[in-house]
C-alpha cells in the first residue's frame, strides 16, 4: 500500500462515510431477478440495515413520496413501488440494530412541525441518538390531493416553509433543558421546575403554541440531511444542514466543484467549512476484475432498463405512447409532441424535448445504438464500477482531496445488494486507512464527526 505524500493531500486523515439508501419507489432496484426480495417485508429492511451495520455504515436511509407515480393515465406499473411510513419503520429498526443511524426522508410540505418534530425526537430517543431527518420539500399540488390541506404551496414558498418548519422543530427539540427530569421519585415534581419550556411561534406559515413532551436525545437533535441542487437549495443546505445528499459523486472534478461551491456558501453564512458532510448518492458495482465489473454493470443496466422501461422513458420524452414498439430497434421516427402538460406525475418533467431528441438521434446514429441502448447510455450515469482495490483507490482520492465525505449507496438489489460492498470493498478501504475499523461513538452525529449541538 502506498500512501500519498501528506503534503500533497489536503485531508490525509479523512475517513469515508457510507450510508445506504433504501429507495422505495424507483426503477433502479431490480425486482425481476430471482434473488430480489420484497420491498415491504420486514426481513428486507432488517437485512439491509444489519448488513450496513456489519459494514460500519453511518446511516440507513428511507426515501419519501406521498403519492404513487402515474403515467399514461394510470398508476405507473413497471417499477418497484410501495413503501412504509419511514419513521414507523425506523422505530422498529431502532430495536433491531445497535449503532447505525436511522434517517427518515420526511416532507415539510405535507407535515406539521410540532407533530413531525415529536416523531423524529421519539425515534431519536428510542434509538439512543441515532435519528436523522432528510428534509425534502415540494410544492406539488398533485401529491397534495392526498392531504386534507390539499395543494397549498407556491413554488417560491416551499423553502420559506421548510426554513420556518425547521426553526419550529429545533425549538421543540430544545424545549427541555438538560436534566429536566427529577433524579428520584421523592422529588416534588417529575419535571425539574423551569426545565421544561414552551414553544410559541408565529410566522408566515405556522402559528403554534405547545408544551414539548420530549427530552433531548443522546445527540441533542436529529441530524439534518438535505438535498437540493438549485442555488436556493444549496443556500438552504449551507445555512441549515449537517449533511448534504448530493448528485455530484461520479466525476472527481464535478464533485470537487460542488464541494468547493458549498464551502463558499458555508463561509458566506459564517459556518466553518467542516460544519457539514457531503454524501453523494451512488451505485457501486463490484467485480473481481475490471472486465467482470463491466459485465456486471451491463447486466445491471439491462435489468434496470427493460424494454418496457426504455419505451416508457422514451415515451415521456417524445410524449407519445410507445408501448408495443421495439425497444431494440431504432429511435422513433416521429418528432416529439410538445405540450405544456406531459401527463406524467411523480417523475421529473423532461425539459426541451426537441433538443434532447436531436441529441439522442445524433448519438444513436454515431454509435449504432438501439432505442434501449440509447436510453441506457444517455440516461443518468449512476455509479462507480470496478474491482474492490481500484474503487478503494478512487474513493480514497475523492475523500482525501475533499471532493466528498462519503457516499450514500443505493443497492441495485434488495436485500443482499450491500454484501459485496461490505465484504469486499470495506476491507480494501480499511487497509488504506480511509475507513473506520470499529464504531467509535454511539450516535449518528458522532459517526459523522459532527460538532455537538449547542
Amino acid at each position, binding site marked *: 500500500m502506498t500512501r500519498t505524500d501528506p503534503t500533497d493531500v489536503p485531508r490525509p486523515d479523512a475517513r469515508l462515510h457510507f450510508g445506504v439508501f433504501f429507495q422505495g419507489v424507483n426503477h433502479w432496484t431490480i*425486482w*425481476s431477478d430471482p434473488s430480489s*426480495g420484497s420491498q*415491504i*417485508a*420486514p*426481513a428486507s*429492511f*432488517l437485512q439491509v440495515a444489519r448488513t450496513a451495520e456489519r459494514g460500519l455504515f453511518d446511516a440507513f436511509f428511507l426515501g419519501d*413520496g406521498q*403519492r*404513487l407515480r402515474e403515467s399514461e393515465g394510470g*398508476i*405507473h*406499473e*413497471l*417499477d418497484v*413501488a*410501495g*413503501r*412504509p*411510513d419511514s*419513521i*414507523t419503520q425506523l*422505530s*422498529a429498526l*431502532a*430495536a433491531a440494530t445497535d449503532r447505525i443511524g436511522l434517517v427518515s426522508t420526511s416532507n415539510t410540505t*405535507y*407535515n*406539521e412541525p*410540532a*407533530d413531525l418534530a*415529536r*416523531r423524529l*425526537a*421519539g*425515534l431519536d*430517543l*428510542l434509538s439512543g441518538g441515532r435519528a436523522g431527518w432528510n428534509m425534502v420539500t415540494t410544492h406539488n399540488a398533485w401529491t397534495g390531493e*392526498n392531504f*386534507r*390541506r390539499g395543494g397549498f404551496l407556491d413554488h417560491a414558498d416551499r423553502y420559506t416553509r421548510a426554513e420556518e418548519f425547521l426553526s419550529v422543530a429545533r425549538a421543540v427539540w430544545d424545549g*427541555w433543558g438538560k436534566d429536566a*427530569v*427529577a*433524579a*428520584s*421519585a421523592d*422529588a416534588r*415534581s*417529575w*419535571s425539574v421546575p423551569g426545565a421544561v419550556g414552551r414553544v410559541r411561534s408565529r410566522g408566515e406559515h*405556522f402559528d403554534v*403554541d*405547545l408544551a414539548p*413532551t*420530549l*427530552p433531548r436525545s443522546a445527540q441533542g437533535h436529529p441530524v439534518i440531511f438535505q438535498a437540493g441542487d438549485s442555488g436556493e437549495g444549496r443556500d438552504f443546505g449551507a445555512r441549515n444542514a449537517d449533511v448534504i445528499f448530493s448528485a455530484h459523486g461520479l466525476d472527481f472534478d464535478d464533485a470537487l466543484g460542488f464541494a468547493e461551491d458549498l464551502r463558499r456558501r458555508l463561509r458566506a453564512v459564517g459556518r466553518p467549512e467542516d460544519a457539514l458532510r457531503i454524501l453523494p448518492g451512488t451505485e457501486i458495482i463490484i467485480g473481481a476484475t475490471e472486465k467482470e465489473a463491466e459485465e456486471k454493470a451491463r447486466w445491471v443496466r439491462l435489468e434496470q432498463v427493460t424494454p*418496457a422501461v426504455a419505451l416508457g422513458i422514451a415515451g415521456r420524452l417524445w410524449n407519445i405512447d410507445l408501448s408495443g414498439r421495439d425497444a431494440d430497434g431504432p429511435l422513433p421516427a416521429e418528432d416529439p409532441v410538445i405540450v405544456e402538460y406531459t401527463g406524467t406525475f411523480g417523475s421529473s418533467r423532461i425539459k426541451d424535448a426537441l433538443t434532447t431528441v436531436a441529441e439522442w438521434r445524433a448519438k444513436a446514429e454515431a454509435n449504432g445504438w438501439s432505442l434501449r441502448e440509447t436510453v441506457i447510455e444517455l440516461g443518468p450515469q449512476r455509479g462507480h464500477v470496478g474491482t474492490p482495490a481500484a474503487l478503494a483507490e478512487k474513493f480514497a482520492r475523492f475523500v482525501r482531496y475533499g471532493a466528498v465525505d462519503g457516499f450514500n449507496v443505493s443497492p441495485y438489489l434488495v436485500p443482499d445488494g450491500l454484501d459485496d460492498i461490505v465484504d469486499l470493498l470495506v476491507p480494501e478501504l480499511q487497509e488504506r486507512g480511509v475507513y473506520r475499523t470499529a464504531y467509535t461513538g454511539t450516535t449518528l452525529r458522532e459517526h459523522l464527526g459532527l460538532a455537538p449541538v449547542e
Partner: protein
Amino acid sequence: MPRPALRLAVELDGDGAHPAAWRRAAHAPGELLTARRLARTATAAENAGFTLVTLDDSILPPASGADPVGRIGAVERAAFVAASTSVLGVAPVIATTYAEPFHVSSQLSSLDHLSAGRAGWVVGVEEDPAAARAWGRPLVEGPAARAREAHDGVRVVGDLWDSWEDDAVIRSVATSRYLDRERLHSIDFTGETYSVKGPSIVPRPPQGRPVVLARQGLVPAGLTDVALVGGPTAAETGAAGEAATAAGVPLAFAEIEVALDTPRETARERIADLERYSPWEERPDRLRYTGSADGLVSLLAELAARVDGVRLLPLVLDEDLSVLSRLVLPALFVRRLATRPLPGTTLRTSLGLPRPVSRFATSTATSTSTSTSTSTSTRTVTSTGTALVREETR
C-alpha cells in the same frame, strides 16, 4: 353455548393509570422515556400472555403539575414494541382530529407490515383546544365536529388500507410489470371538511385492515372491530358490552382500572400512598377494581359471560403487571376463562376476527384474500425471537 374465552389487553402508557404512578415505579423518573424501559414492559406483557397492548397518546403532555409531562409518540413506541416482541398485538392511540388521515393510514399499515399482522388502532380524539394550537390548525369545536373528524378519519384510513388489493404486486417478468394498476384504486373520499385521493403508498396490510378499537359510539359500528365499554359497576359494564355487540360491533372489551394487592401492601394502601400526591379521578366509562388477584379473577369470570375481552389499566405497571403475570393470568388460563395468543398468528386471528376483503376486490381476487394461509405471504420466526421476518414468496 358459552362464549369464547376472554382476550386480554393491557394499557402500557407511562408508569400506570394513576397520574402519580411514577412515584412507585421501579426505575428512576427519567428512565420512563427510554427504549430499555419500554422493551422491558412490553416483554413482561408478552410473557404474561396478554393478546394486546395499547399505548395512549396525545400531542399534549400526559399530565400536568407534578406528574409526568413527557411521552414518546405512540406510533414510534408501538413499532419499537412490535420489533421487541413476537406474538403480542400492538395498538397505539391515534387521534385523527388534527392529524392527516393519509399519514395515519401509512403509519398503521406499516406497523402491521413490520409486525407481521399484529397491529391495532385505538381511535383517539383530541378534545382540548390546546391540541389545535400545538398542531397549528383551526380548532375542531364541539362533540359533533370531533365525532365527524373521527368518523371521516376512520373511513379514509380504512379505504386507504383497501386501496391496494392483496395481489396488486404481481412482479410479472413476462409483461415487465411490477404492479397491476387494475388492482390499485383511488379512494376519492370527499367529506365535509376535506378530500383524499389515494391510493395508499403502502401495500395492503397483512391483516387486510389492522384491528380498529374505539370507545363505544365514537365511530359507526361497521367501522369498528372492538368497542371499548365500561361503567361504574360490573352489571353496567356487562350491559354496555351487550349493547355494543347488539349494535353490530363484532367484539366488546370492558375497560377496567385495576389496583391489586401485592405481597407487601394491599391495593388500598397503595392507592392511598399515591393519593397523597394526586387524585385518581373516576371515569364514568371505566370500571375500577381494587383488591386481591382472586377477586379480579372472579370479576373477570363474571364479565366473561357478557363481554369478549378486557382492557386492563393497571394502577402502577411495575407493581400490578407482576401480580397480573404471576397470579391473575395463570388462573384465567387454567380455568380457560381467557386465552393467550399463539405464535405466528395475526391479531385478527387471536381475536377471532375474519380478515376483511378489500372493498375494491373483484370476484376473481377475493378467493386469495379470505385467509392468511392462502395469501402471498409465509411466516418464519427468527432465531433472535423477533417477528420482524416475514418473507414473501413469489
